[in-house]
């Protein structure tokens, strides 16, 4: 499975709920394949998608908040897992696209093959799912509709030669679009 296909599958489930997506290729794939008002595309501040997502989740308990994170990105902000695990937001779904590399900067390795991110998440009270194929991902997404968060879905992906275009909106426009989406019901 490559990231853009995983993103297409997940975006179908998300509907009008919010997505906070990490910088680099993740936001680019989301922009190219499933652009919506309710997507907050990060440009810069790597590592903070889970923190921004936590802030949105705490203030919007009637919406589901999906965090699109990477292995490199979550390893930069592991403290965030402990904060989320302590606060137990029921509407937070944290997706890690794990390719064991910093793909956007040239594919340099991360340590995610040598450690178990899913075990870290379990020990801080997440409900954890893990998959490396598209059919199973669809089944997990169905299950998570009935489970309460915080939920982590660790999606093992392969790197791809395909590179999506850059996010075409200015950051202030991304903010305005996203803020307007929060005012509508999911």
């Amino acid at each position: 499975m490559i990231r853009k296909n995983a993103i297409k599958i997940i975006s179908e489930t998300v509907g009008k709920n919010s997505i906070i997506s990490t910088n680099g290729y993740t936001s680019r794939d989301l922009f190219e394949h499933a652009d919506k008002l309710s997507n907050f595309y990060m440009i810069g501040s790597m590592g903070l998608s889970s923190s921004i997502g936590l802030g949105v989740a705490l203030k919007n308990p009637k919406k589901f908040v999906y965090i699109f994170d990477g292995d490199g990105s979550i390893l930069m902000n592991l403290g965030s897992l402990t904060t989320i695990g302590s606060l137990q937001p029921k509407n937070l779904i944290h997706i890690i696209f794990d390719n064991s590399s910093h793909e956007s900067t040239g594919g340099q390795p991360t340590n995610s093959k040598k450690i178990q991110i899913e075990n870290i998440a379990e020990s801080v009270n997440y409900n954890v799912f893990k998959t490396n194929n598209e059919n199973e991902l669809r089944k997990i997404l169905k299950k998570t509709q009935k489970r309460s968060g915080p939920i982590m879905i660790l999606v093992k992906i392969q790197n791809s030669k395909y590179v999506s275009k850059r996010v075409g909106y200015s950051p202030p426009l991304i903010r305005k679009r996203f803020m307007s989406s929060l005012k509508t019901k999911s």
Partner: protein
Amino acid sequence: MKESIQRKIFNFLLEHNIENFIGVPDSTMKYFIDQGLKKKKILIATREDEAIGIAAGMSLSDSSSLVFMQNAGFANSISTITSLVQLYNIPLIFLIGWRGYLESDAPEHIKIGKIQPDLLNSLDLRSKVMTNENWNECCKWAVRKIKNNSSCTLIIRRISDD
């Protein structure tokens, strides 16, 4: 700064629609934080950049937020300020404890204390240094700033050795 003034600052900001107080503790403002803890309004983050991220998410939800930290944590936060808060124009109030204001402070605070005003200037982050006398007008200024959707900084100095 006096204990009673720090508690008043917290109460004033809460009464003026600052809804979220997120940060990493600093002894310079311990009574401010304690007042917030008593009112169950404080969220302690693991790092200052994490705190800014959470506050940004709340601000995107139309809920005004303050991020508190020591100036050591302010140094940790510079990239988050430039590439999230300022890039997206997300309004936040920063409350920063000024360690190293006195040259007699512990050695790890001296350098950052010295360059703090220049750092704030370089970031174009407007700031006011609060005292026991001027705190009320400083807080009014910060509340006005956030209502006008701009970020600003309030500073509490460490002015005695303990």
